[in-house]
């Protein structure tokens, strides 16, 4: 047997094993090691991460024995509630009086920042707000054009400068324009950057500082945009981005694929911020408020 055949056979076997595990998860029955193992497996397969998965299941064991629970379904319910509580709590921030609400989108390359900026703009506009988009990615080829097209589709204004210009300067202009035009919401796109690149993280800090200088208290929301297919690297992303600019919430994109996006659970250890939205497609309407309970259920399914 060659490599792929070997794995195919193996994977088929483990698929059967997995289905058996699912049975374990869903049938009522006693709370034995097999059940907990199946839970662990489901969490890890959902990208919750090894550490967080082991911890969650360990906590569950304690809770189960403390409360003398005997039913699998009850145990599963407890776990779901735990996860739900961790991820919940997104609230619309109150709009500052007489000043725009400023939202900044940050994240690694290709996670979906620009698209999310457009979707958010569309959402706020439909709620009757005057929205201004900021083309804060002056680095990536055609990033400005991309946002320009989205701005037109969403029917909102865009502040842009030449490719290659200093992104802080773009934000400086944009915030001044926003105040002059009495805009309600400013949504800033930024260039994708890996959290390991010190210079780029410095650039992000500078953007944040400049925004705060023009409008004290801003940005009000800093949303870390994370691709649902992300594995353990999400944990490092959370830590590093949060060090640079305090993150206030998460946006989980591309949840319309087969990935479960469980890494946001592990990211909570560092961030302790809610998941605010999920991206479920490439159209303007494809941004939904996050439903923690649904998410937790899907993780364990």
């Amino acid at each position: 047997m060659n490599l792929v055949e070997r794995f195919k056979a193996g994977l088929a076997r483990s698929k059967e094993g997995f289905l058996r595990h699912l049975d374990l998860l869903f049938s009522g029955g006693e709370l034995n090691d097999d059940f907990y193992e199946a839970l662990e497996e489901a969490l890890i397969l959902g990208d919750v991460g090894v550490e967080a998965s082991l911890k969650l299941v360990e906590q569950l064991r304690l809770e189960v024995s403390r409360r003398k629970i005997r039913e699998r379904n009850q145990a599963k319910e407890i776990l779901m509630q735990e996860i739900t509580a961790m991820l919940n709590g997104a609230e619309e921030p109150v709009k500052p009086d007489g000043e725009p609400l400023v939202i900044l989108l940050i994240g690694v390359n290709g996670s979906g920042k620009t698209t999310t900026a457009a979707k958010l703009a569309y959402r706020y506009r439909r709620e009757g707000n005057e929205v201004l988009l900021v083309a804060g990615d002056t680095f990536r080829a055609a990033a400005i054009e991309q946002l320009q097209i989205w701005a037109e589709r969403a029917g909102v204004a865009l502040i842009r400068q030449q490719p290659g210009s200093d992104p802080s300067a773009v934000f400086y202009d944009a915030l001044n324009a926003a105040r002059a035009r009495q805009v309600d919401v400013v949504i800033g796109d930024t260039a994708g950057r890996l959290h390991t690149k010190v210079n780029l993280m410095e650039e992000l800090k500078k953007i944040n500082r400049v925004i705060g200088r023009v409008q004290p208290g801003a940005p009000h929301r800093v949303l870390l945009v994370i691709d649902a297919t992300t594995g353990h690297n999400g944990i490092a992303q959370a830590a590093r981005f949060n060090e640079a600019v305090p993150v206030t919430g998460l946006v989980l994109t591309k949840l319309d694929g087969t990935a479960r996006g469980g890494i946001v659970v592990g990211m909570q250890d560092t961030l302790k911020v809610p998941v605010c939205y999920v991206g479920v497609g490439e159209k303007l309407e494809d941004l939904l408020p996050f439903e923690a309970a649904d998410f937790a259920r899907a993780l364990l399914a």
Partner: protein
Amino acid sequence: MFANLAEKLQNTLRKLRGKGKLSEKDVDLALREIRLALLEADVNFKVVKEFVEEIRERAVGEEVRQSLTPGQQVVKIVHEELTALMGREQSKINLAGSPAVIMLAGLQGSGKTTTAVKLAVELSHGGRKPLLAAADTYRPGAAEQLQVLGDSAGLPCYRNDGASPVQICREAVRFAAREGYDPVILDTAGRLHLDAAMMDELKEIKAQLKPAELLLVVDAMTGQDAVNVASSFHEALGLTGVILTKLDGDTRGGAALSVRAVTGCPIKFAGVGEKLDALEPFHPERMASRILGMGDLLTLIEKAEAGFDQQKARKLEQKLRRQEFTLDDFREQLQQIQQIGSMEEILAMLPAAQLPKELRRLQVDEKQFQRIEAVIASMTPAERNNPAIINSSRRRRIARGSGTTVQDVNRLLTQFSQMQRLFKQMGSLEKKGFKNIGKGKRGFPFF
């Protein structure tokens, strides 16, 4: 992690040494550690299971039981098996056909457009005349992105924004045949493997253009889902290879193994940055090290060697031996290190777990280098040769001259004297038979 894994295994396996037979439970314990390490690197759960079963016998066989360091022995075996699974190094691109057609596909945002241009640059360096084809008609600004990137590298891009992707590809190939471009690199839109209509579009392009290469572009940060993505794309299209992107970050990249296991396709290239020259051949052995958390030492050594002046190195080594290392030499070392790459890049290539904790969390400030250089530049030659003479009034002068503070000067002098002490120790270690890394090349005090 490597140190971690080896240590954990060491503890588990120490008890086993010399035993005639291992209990099922002992074996399971050791394999559990391996399983967790691979899972933390994002290798797919099922692939891990399969892999661990495959190595079960070897991992607890005779060679391990007889070893004095069973933990490390097991890691070595795991590393060997991982490397073997990853396949041989094969960055050759099949260029059959006139023009040859290379087609890229993958999920949204994985790096297709950037990689298309990187590949074109690479092939043009090899004497080819590539043509880029903008076949993503969905994402706003996609064709523009490809064209801007192509322009910046002086490479042509075929566009027909109103047409369908299949049509664009056909036209591009016809255009290339007429104008003498070869190969044609097709940049397709990102899509989900679940999206039947979009997958059909790729099938249609493949059927009509018969690409010599159909490459899946995969983000190295991908977690468990890599298996679903790769197997769906492979089943639908019959891939010929994979390109792994965004390896310049700190992801362990277990997706590489997952993708390889379910497709059997070679991983041909690695994307290591946003710039157009940031494409490297894929090294299976290094990837195995990386997945196990052993860091990318080989790459680091290679880069260091490329940026290192042999003669200077020999001179430096002599100085070190005679303990004549001065602040001038120190400055030169700093400059050479900076040529290798930014400090963050260097750190990213080191095995995280083996670094001191402070260093692991270190956010290196490149400006720090500039400060040090400025301080040294403000010293007189006599001071550089013999820092002992730098008294407090001299310190003040140096601080003023370099636009730094006396604290900065103090810090540098302390660090320097620590370093000298370290070299002294290294000298005596070497006498005891420790060799420098870097294939016998010398003069590497910083690594």
